[in-house]
């Protein structure tokens, strides 16, 4: 009893209580700093290996950009990109998403092997662009295909069509005009984004040339030469942070995606055997009923195959969940009785590369 009283007296002595209270303060301070605000800063790293930009890849890249924008602990973003570009509208979408992200946190783009056309447009939304000496960048321009033939389509006795250009959408010259508008809007982006750094004339930009990283730096299409490490340092510098952590955004987004899938799939797997007959069969039946067979080679036969198919980087994935005839479906399937072929046109910001 006496010992306890002595311990209480000792703890109650001013120097011991002060130390304990200081420790409480430090714990409180660190908790607020690390778990409430502002947190240990992070740099989000996004790796986009060779990717042709289309609706699907733009959706996936957009999901990663959303993630870094919404995570307050991520103070800067580094994107490593290899892309020859792709469809026009998805490329523009990514550019605008980049600009939106840039308004909140710095984005540094590392142009890897090839960043051309639509990929280059996307990178124009970054604060700072780096390339390697042997990177290929540029190819500012548009491909619109197919153009209507010079000679207009012959009228049909069978179809009632309103307007002389209702089917084609316009004359060939009209489409050439639209192509020019896209070209000029691409030019406007490059010229506005590069500003005084650009050492090329507008016409030189619009020739559609591809440049090595060294050339691109010399003509002001990029800011410097470097790789991911330099990009991370630059992003930290722009964000004004030090001693930061790195976040693998690809993994994080994939993890979130897996968790979402688990919420769909999990309740069906109450058995200890994940491939237990009835539940797995019910799940497969559900998914197959939606027209998803993973690789288009027939119905998925087991859960492992199905999951692999759902996460496949190419081919069908969860994005194809809408059933046939619905959103995103093949127009021929959506309108099976429509007598004409639906051909487009489509605009591309795409670098095709030298022919064989």
């Amino acid at each position, binding site marked *: 009893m006496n010992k306890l009283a002595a311990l209480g007296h000792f703890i109650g002595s*001013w120097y011991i*209580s*002060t130390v304990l*209270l*200081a*420790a*409480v*303060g*430090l714990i*409180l*301070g*660190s908790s*607020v*700093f*690390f778990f409430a605000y*502002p947190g*240990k*800063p992070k740099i989000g790293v996004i790796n986009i290996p060779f990717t042709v930009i289309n609706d699907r890849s733009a959706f996936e890249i957009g999901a990663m950009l959303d993630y870094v924008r919404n995570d307050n602990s991520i*103070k*800067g973003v580094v994107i490593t990109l290899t892309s020859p570009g792709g469809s026009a509208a998805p490329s523009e979408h990514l550019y605008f998403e980049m*600009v939106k992200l*840039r*308004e*909140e*946190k*710095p984005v540094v783009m590392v142009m890897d092997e090839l960043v051309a056309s639509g990929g280059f447009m996307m990178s124009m939304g970054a*604060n700072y662009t780096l390339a390697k000496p042997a990177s290929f960048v540029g190819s500012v321009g548009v491909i619109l295909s197919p153009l209507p033939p*010079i*000679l207009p389509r012959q009228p049909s006795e069978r179809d009632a069509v309103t307007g002389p250009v209702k089917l084609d959408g316009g*004359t060939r*010259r009209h489409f*050439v*005009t639209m*192509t*020019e*508008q896209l070209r*000029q*809007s691409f030019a*406007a*982006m490059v010229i*506005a*984004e590069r*500003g005084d750094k650009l050492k090329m004339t507008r*016409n030189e930009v*619009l*020739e559609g040339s591809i440049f090595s990283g060294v050339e691109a730096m010399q003509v002001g299409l990029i800011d410097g030469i470097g790789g991911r490490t330099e990009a991370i340092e630059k992003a930290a510098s*722009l*964000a*004004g*942070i*030090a*001693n*930061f952590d790195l976040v693998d955004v690809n993994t994080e987004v994939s993890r979130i995606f897996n968790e979402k899938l688990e919420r769909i799939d999990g309740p069906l797997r109450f058995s200890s055997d994940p491939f237990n007959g009835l539940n797995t069969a019910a799940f497969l039946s559900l998914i197959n009923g939606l027209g998803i067979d993973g690789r288009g080679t027939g119905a998925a036969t087991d859960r492992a195959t199905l999951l692999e198919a759902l996460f496949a980087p190419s081919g069908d994935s969860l994005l194809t969940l809408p059933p046939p005839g619905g959103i995103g479906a093949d127009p021929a399937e959506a309108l099976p009785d429509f007598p004409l072929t639906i051909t487009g046109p489509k605009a591309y910001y795409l670098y095709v590369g030298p022919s064989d």
Partner: protein
Amino acid sequence: MAPLTSYLGSMAKFAFGSALGRVLVIPLFFAAAYFLVALFIYYRGTYDPPATPDLQFEEITTPLSAYTIFTEQPEVRSGLLVIDGAHNNDFSQNEIVSLLSSLANRGITVDIMGEPSLFGGFQRVDASERFAMLESKLRQAGSLIVIAPGEPYSKAERGLVRRFVEKGGRLLLIGDPTRSQQINTLSEEFGLSFQPGFLYNQVENDLNHRNIFVRDFFPDPVTEGLVEVVFYTAGAIRSAGPALAYTDGNTFSTIVEGVEPFYPLAKANQDNVLAVGDLTFMVPPQNAILDNNRLIANIAEFLASSGRGFELSDFPYFFDGAADIVLGRPSLLELGAGMRRTLSEFQIDAEVRNSESPGKDLIFLGLYDDAVQVERYLSFAGIQVGETVRTPFTPDLDPQGGAIISLQVQDGRHILIVLADSLANLTDVADQLDSGRFRDVIVSDSFGILVFPDAG
């Protein structure tokens, strides 16, 4: 300073002077201190986002070149123009309708060599048939158009066309960089070379770098009245003859480094061979832009003005729609009627007459004894008929068992004289003229000799 010291003193007094003060102030102090130190360690500045650029999409303008109205009242004449469709040519008739219309305005008949395909272009013609087809068509034609051939011209075919051009036939060669290009297999025969690649102008164009303006022209009937034309994907032409149109300093070729004028329109050394490096400028509606229709009309005029000369092997196409058949003696009447029938198959309106009509083409059928009736024509050609037949082309001939065919052109009239030693042999010659076999016995452009096997 004094109030601050006083304030800190009172805080210290509160913190250390009472248990409650210590419990509140000390943790907060250390928490704040930790926060500030951590902030210093991790955050050295703030992010200053760049201004979002104003892309000014509303200022994007795309001015189009104007459509123009072009009318003409050309001189109407006659003639046949052949268009090559037998070399897998990569065009359709609809694409050249503006040129065809301009030719029709001039009274020119157009004959297309080859059968149009259902899928555009033309059906394939076997190389073995092509030569005969080309030879037959060129026999009649005053002009020839070759557009984007997909198959090369053989040496024999080149020879045929060369011969056609040498006789004054007009040749239009049209290449197009967007289409198959075997045109050099023919054009190089005339010192013309269609260059690979295409011309472009990034500074000034009709909405696309490939749509180039041309405003600099060499004086020539083909460029008469032209101020500004637009070519929609043109290739450059190199020529030993005069270039008719020059590009400006902002126009480049995709394959030639550096600045030089390029020629999308040129003539060969021969004035009757014209080369154009673009087809699409004449495809509707692009034919109606700026002076394109005027250029098309000038090209049509070039083609319609053929002064092509004919030779004996071209029988009967050298007769200009009508001819008199004069017989050396009444016994040849049946032969004359046969000849008339033959000519009518070629849309030549021939009549058997007692004597020739002034200014009209003439066919004279007779025996050697009748040669005196056409002596003035024979002597003009250097031919004497007597004991022997003397010609500038052969050693003296024995008239027995033989026949001669002579073609002369005098004052624009074509005069064909056929003489034989007997009615039987004269009939045989008429048959050979009908069947075309006579071409095997031609010894010069205007003279043929037939020797019959049973000649004594």
